[in-house]
Structure formats: C-alpha cells, structure tokens
C-alpha cells in the first residue's frame, strides 16, 4: 500500500541523507519527497510517500523517530488529509496556437506564469490525478510539452491536529496513552471530503 509520512526534521546539512538512507536500507523506493521550511524555527517539514506493506508503517515510523535529527513523524495512513502537488509545465506555443492552450488552462484552473513568442509556462496545483490529466491533454498535441517540473506531494491532515506535532510544540500537554486514543479515533473518522 501507499504510505504517507509527514516529518519535522532539523534543518541541518545531511539530514535528508539520513532520512533517504533509512529507506534505502529498508529497500523501499521513495515515490515522492518534498521538503521545505515549516512553521517551526529551525525545522523543515517533509512529506514522504512510499510503497510498502501495510505492516511496514509502524516500523518505518519507529525507525524515522530513531534518527536523531527527526523531531516528529506522523503516519497519515487513511486519515482525512489534503494532498497537493505543484507542477510547472513549459509548452511550445506560437501566437497562432496559444488560444487553444489558454482554453485548456482555464478548464483545469491552472495559470499561465510566463509567456514568450515560442513558449509559455503553466503553473498548476492540485491532486496528482488532476496534474496527470492536464499533462495527458497537452500531450495530445504532439511535441508541445518542452519541460515538466513537479514538486512531489505535500500532505496536511484536515482539521484540528491533535497528534504529536502539537505535543512536540508544547502546545498540548497530554499523556502518550491519551494521545494514542485520540489518534486512533481520528483515524476512524469517515473521509467525507476530498
């Protein structure tokens, strides 16, 4: 199954290697990895998606926590969450055939962010399938796509986050057992959105 982990890691040289090396050691391919600054000073937030057996989730999370630079790990599993990806797509387009692409961009609610006489650049945010959809349609016109740059997935849980993130921030004082109960309740919420 597809696992999604969100982790807060110290913003230091070599930390990404340690995270990546763990997956290499477990012989698990990383499907997608995004890293950037978080709301917490000195900490980066990463979203990591990988394919592994259902039982592997526990061990991966436990092993991530064993890395000294990893401050927090959330196994999103099936919990209600929002996942987005950003894509920049450069398309060959002349003033003569631009308008067709403009129409596509409109339909997909994407944006044109750069325009030259030979090409234009599309910025698109959305779930993976939506981005795949736009790329597929653009490909129908042979040779149009010049470059694709995709960010990989970013995931955030929906609603009030009661798990260890807030606890690690010191915002919530709760026992491990309580936290565990809340997390398991949260996991059973029906996923009505998205």
């Amino acid at each position, binding site marked *: 199954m597809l696992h999604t982990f969100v982790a807060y890691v110290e913003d230091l040289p070599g930390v990404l*290697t340690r995270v990546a090396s763990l997956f290499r050691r477990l012989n698990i391919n990383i499907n997608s990895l995004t890293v950037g600054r978080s709301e917490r000073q000195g900490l980066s937030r990463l979203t990591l998606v990988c394919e592994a057996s259902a039982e592997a989730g526990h061990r991966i999370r*436990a092993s991530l*926590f064993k890395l000294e630079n990893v401050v927090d790990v959330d196994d999103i599993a099936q919990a209600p969450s929002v996942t987005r990806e950003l894509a920049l797509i450069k398309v060959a387009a002349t003033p003569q055939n631009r308008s067709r692409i403009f129409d596509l961009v409109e339909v997909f609610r994407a944006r044109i962010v750069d325009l030259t006489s030979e090409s234009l650049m599309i910025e698109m945010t959305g779930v993976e399938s939506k981005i795949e959809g736009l790329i597929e349609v653009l490909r129908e016109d042979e040779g149009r796509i010049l470059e694709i740059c995709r960010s990989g997935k970013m995931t955030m849980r929906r609603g009030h986050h009661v798990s260890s993130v807030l606890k690690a921030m010191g915002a919530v004082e709760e026992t491990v057992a309580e936290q565990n109960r809340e997390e398991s309740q949260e996991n059973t919420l029906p996923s009505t959105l998205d």
Partner: protein
Amino acid sequence: MAAKSNANTQSSNAHLTTPTPLTGSEILWATLVGEGVDTVFGYPGGAILPAYDALRKFPIRHVLVRHEQCAAHMADGYARASGKVGVAIATSGPGATNLVTGIATAMLDSIPIVCITGNVSSKVLGTDAFQEVDITGITLPVTKHNFLVSKADDLAHVLRQAFQIARSGRPGPVLVDITKDAQQATAIFDFAAARPRPYRPHPMLRVENSALDHAAELIRSSKRPVILAGHGVMESGAMEQVRALAERAQVPVALTLLGLGGFPASHPLNLGMMGMHGEAWVNHAIQESDLLIACGMRFDDRVTGKLSDYALKAKKIHIEIDPAEINKNVKVDVALVGDLRAVLEELLPRVSARDGSAWLKAIESSKGAVAVRDIKNLPDSGHLYAAHVMHDLWRITGGNAVVVTDVGQHQMWEAQYFHHEQPRSLITSGGLGTMGFALPAAIGAKFACPEKDVWVIAGDGGFQMTAAELATIVQEKLKINIAIINNGYLGMVRQWQEFFYERNYEATPLVSPDFVKLADAHGIPGRAVRTRAEVADAVNEARAAKGAFLLNFLVEKEESVYPMIPAGSALHEMIRRPGKGAKNPLEETAQD
C-alpha cells in the same frame, strides 16, 4: 591501571567549572574528562595530531593500538565489560575507514562507544585532500548517529551529545569527526553550558496498564511458558527483575548468545542458550511453548530459525526498548515498549505465584540422560576436543573470569560448555559476527576491570586477523590469558561445507604460524596443548603467570558444533550429535 597522574590534572578539572579559552584539541580532552573517560584507544595521524599534542595535559590514558579496527573493538570490549561508554580515536582517511568494522560490530550488538576521528581542514573538505574521506557518510548506516564538527565552538556540545546518544535508550556507537582547523582554533570552553538537550525518549515507547494486565493474565493462564532473555537484560540492568519473574511464576529461562550471564547458569530454571546451536531441549521447549515472554531480545534469525514455523503454539509478550523491533520478525500479542527493568517492575506486582512443575518436569525429561552422557563424564579417548577445553577452563576458573570469544565454532562451544553466572562475564560479537574481535576486545575489557581474570578464546583463523595486538598487550603490560582453539581450519565454514556443500573444503584449510613462537617473539610465554591430560596443568600455568600467557590448543580437526539448526530450517529440525560408534564419540544430550 590507574589513570595517568599529571601535574596539570588540577587545571584541567578547573576547566570543567570555569569557562576558559581553550583550543579545540584541549576542549576535546577536557570534555572527555568531564564525561568520566580515563582511557581511550587510538592511533595517531596527521589530521588528529593537534589533539594528540594536547593529550599530555589531561589525565587520560591513551592505549596505542596496532590497527584502528582494534581501537573500536577495544572501546567496545571496554563498554561491554564496564557498562560505560568506550572511546576510540583515529586519524582521517584510512584511520577512519579502518574503524568501520569495529563500529558496525558495536552497532549490531547495541554497544555504547564514541569514536573520534580527525579530518582535513574545513576549507578543503570535499576536495579529495590527502587522507580525506567522507567518514560521516560512510558510517551513517552503522552508527546510531554521527557528527561532523568544523568549529571549535561546537565541539564540547557535540561531544556531550555524542555521549548521551551512545548510552541512552537502545545504546549504540556514535562517531564525531573533527576537522583539523576545529582542533586548532580557540573557543571558550564551558562544560556545564555545553550539556546536551534533555534526553528525549523514543516517542513511541508505550507501556499501557491494559497491556500489563493482559501480559499478567497470559502468564497466569499459561501452561508451558518460557522466558527468552537477551542482551537487553544486561543493558537495562534487569537481572534481578527477570529472576524475580522467573521464580515467582516458575517460568524456565532460555538465553540468547548475548544474554548469557544475564540469568545464572546454575539456576534451576535456566534452560541454557536457544537458537542455532542451542541444546535440543531448549529449542523444543520454545517450539512446544504456549507463551513466550521475550525480554530485551530481538528474535534474531539465529534464534528463531524458520519464522513461519517458529513457536506456532505460543502467544508472545515482547518487552523491548526499541519500538522498531516490535513485530519486525515475529508478530507478538502483547508489546510492552519500554526499558525492560522499568516494565518488569510494573509487571511483577501483577504476577502471582504459579505452579509450573508439570512443564518443568516435561522439559527435564526431554533432556534425556544428560548427566551420564555429558562430555565431562566421557572417558579420555586421547583426543582433545574443544568442548573439553571449554569445560575444563570453566571448571578450573570456577567461572570467575571475563571470557572474550571470537567468532566461529569455539564461540559456540564456549557458549555451550562455559557456564556464565554473572552479567558481563561473556564478551562476544553476536550480531555482526566479527572475526578478530576477541583479542582487542579483551584488551578493552582488561582496562575496564583490571582486577578480573580475562581470557581470550579464539580460533586459529580469527586470531590471525588481529594478532598484531599481542604487541599492544606487551606495551601496556597487561595480564591477559589467551587460548587458541587450533583445528587447522576455518572451522565453522568447514562445518557448513561438510553439511551443506558436500565436504568441498574450499579455502578453509588454514596454515598458521607456530602461535607459541609468535607469542614468544612478543615476549609472551606460551605452551602448546595436545591432549586432555595436559589441559588443567596448562590452564593453571597460564593463570599463575605474572603477565600474558598463550595456550595453543591443538584440537580435533574436523569436529563440528552440535546440535545445529541449518539456516532456514525450523527450530526443531536440528542436526543431532552423531550416535555411539560413529566417528564422533560425543552423544546427543537430548532425546529425539
């Protein structure tokens, strides 16, 4: 073995209380002193020279090794014997890479060591400068954590953190790589201010009351329980608690190789070692068990055999400090994820006395006529078997020794025939199985407990991997007794070739030097032993010798370790000892 006294001792201790400007090199040693280090094992070189230059000002004894791998093994042996953090030091490049096997050995067995390496100046890092190697990159998968320090200001804090990481939670090796310019630069040293951030236990530790109740209920209702005691018993200091649990609930205890000594061998509830070379009744008891209580062990493949056939009738309780070990190899029914000793202290009040006599009797009867057929009661056939040597060593020393074994057949015979009553009395490389470990690890162990008798037991193959450390023993004037179990083969590999590769003894016959002459060349007396009749006298001569002594036991060449579970077989599918009349006179010690 007292720490080198030094006129500057006073001033170096003053550094610990008063912020003082020091060079990075001085900060290194001052921080080690502050962390309680009095002995380090190392080898100098260009990139670590500033540190060595400052060493004389500090009350730390430096042991010059003959190969950096051995520095790591010595730190490891020191840590295993003392429970404290061992320290190894090496230069950049080859010095650092030579440490790697020793670091991996400590990693696989969860041993707290701190390795310090010099590196080229930060200005030339990454330029393939002379003797530059990316040692933090290389050791990333075999350390619990590692650091690259390029500023003297960071050094004290990083080192203190390294010690904390090495000894906390599930212990392990930490490497600190220090650039030459960081050693040379000056910074304000403030030991107290450099204290590491508060220790953060693994967030997934979990010992719920309901799980404790469930565990107690499983113990109460079980008919055929077995405690599986591992290395965690020692690391957690839970010997008393394991014993209390075993005695109160009358549960027999099986031990892993690294668990030997964690529960007294002479205790009536001690079954002995489990796994690949465990006695038949131990593995049978596990296979027949209806409840396994795993204490600080990780269900290693050498312990479980084929997982799909492992203890199928048993519920499993796993008490373990590392959450990543839970359900890794064996799916468990109750996980108590925390420090073993603390968990057992919570569990014990819930466990009441229990009658286990029927199960104990059943195990006892499965042993067969052990007393009659045990090796110690066999008549002397004129042959010298390694098992004889182990048994006699145990008998003569009364078990009062720290035994450091290498890897291979002798390691298993030692585990079978030398009975360990005390924790930390057996030091051996279990997880990585590093040949060449014994001699250097014994040197480390001797520094950790100079008052104890230290015995090296090594095969002729493994001994030659690190035999150069004989010179270290002489230079440091150490009293270490060395027993080489010499069968002219890489014995365990030969045994596998015999069993599984149609006796194709490819690359296992081994020519060795005359070990007694080799010892003599180092100024170490020695003696060859060819018959069982000579064993006791030889052992006593070694013990009585003032300094180190080497015994070269020329044992049967093609003897194998029995019983044996072939890799990938179920725990009850073992190769038994050949019967009477067979080439091998040793008898199986359990009924089929």
